């Protein structure tokens, strides 16, 4: 019985170590590098309604797809407010439709553009 308890402890310890390593590796891989020339002052901010987000875990999927659109500087989703704030480089031409399409590909439904 003692041996079994020891085994549980050592296996659980190994599991926690793996989890921490994976989380750290994942967060390093998901870091997005931004072009150095883009300063926050030269950015246009748009707010879009997003329907279907139900937890903080939903943010990453839609942000990832929107951030890939050429001209988008970054984006921040908020599931509670059902919206995403998208910052666009002034010189970039980003249509609302391309943002809507990215929202759909994330399995959410685009609502109105709020500004």
């Amino acid at each position: 019985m003692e041996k079994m308890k020891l085994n549980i402890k050592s296996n659980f310890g190994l599991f926690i170590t793996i989890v921490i390593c994976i989380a750290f590796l994942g967060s390093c891989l998901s870091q997005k590098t931004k072009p150095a020339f883009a300063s926050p002052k030269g950015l246009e901010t748009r707010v879009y309604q997003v329907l279907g987000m139900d937890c903080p875990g939903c943010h990453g999927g839609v942000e990832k797809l929107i951030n890939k659109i050429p001209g988008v500087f970054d984006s921040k989703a908020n599931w509670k407010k059902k919206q995403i704030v998208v910052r666009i480089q002034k010189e970039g031409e980003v249509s609302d439709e391309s943002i809507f399409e990215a929202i759909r590909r994330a399995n959410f439904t685009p609502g109105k553009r709020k500004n």
Partner: protein
Amino acid sequence: MSFLFILFVFVSISYSNGISVDAGLTPAEDRWIFRTQFRYLSLSSMAMDHQKIGMYTIPVILAYGLKSNLSLLVRQPVIRRNISIVGASSAESGFGDLFIMGKFKVFRRNHENYTLGLAATLGIEVPTGSDGFSSETWDLQPGLYFSWRRGSLGSDVSMTYTLNGFADKGQNNMNPGNELAFDWAVSYQFGLGERSMTSLAPVIEVSYRDLSPDRLNLRDIENSGGSLLFFSPGMKFTLSSLILEILVQIPVVQNRNGVQIERNATWLFGMRYMF
């Protein structure tokens, strides 16, 4: 023979679901989900040489959103078990069978006040596991998953049917019985912090398993098959892209055919990381 039977039962019970929340909502396109769990399950039988078995399973799962309506999942379990029979004990470790599954979005409605999602899955378990940890059969698993969200309240229902050994026979030329699995989860989510980047959700799951008896030479094996009902309270903690889960699966009804090992509570600690 009873020992062999126990090993076989291990393989078939070790992957029962838990924290089935979000199952009906397919992931975003180009979204990776890494998921792992630490499960501890103990089984005992006074009738079968006072056997006591402790088993830890660590399933490692990787899912990817190929398209907005199609995702692919691969699961590889790592298993360790300790068996104690009348004072003597032994421990073994090995890999379980590889499971590959495709999930297809059938329907999704994102309304201002609610979200509904229905997904169909088709999975196959390939007998790649280590000796004594593999079912040694190709198993096919179709399934249906439904999710509903309204405000902070969420509910998920899933139903799968596993055709064990649909194309071949298992250990000792035995036809393993098929398994019907039904899970129902209800959760309530509390948003924490200013932007609600963190949330805490108590979860209650009810799981039903119906196992057909195994067959040998076209006859049912007496001490196999039956049905199980679990009640599982748990908690889900979401911190941005990281989800931590804890759940305890308590067997409330165990209708086992003949003499079989008794299943005790399963402890489950899980994490998901999405990127």
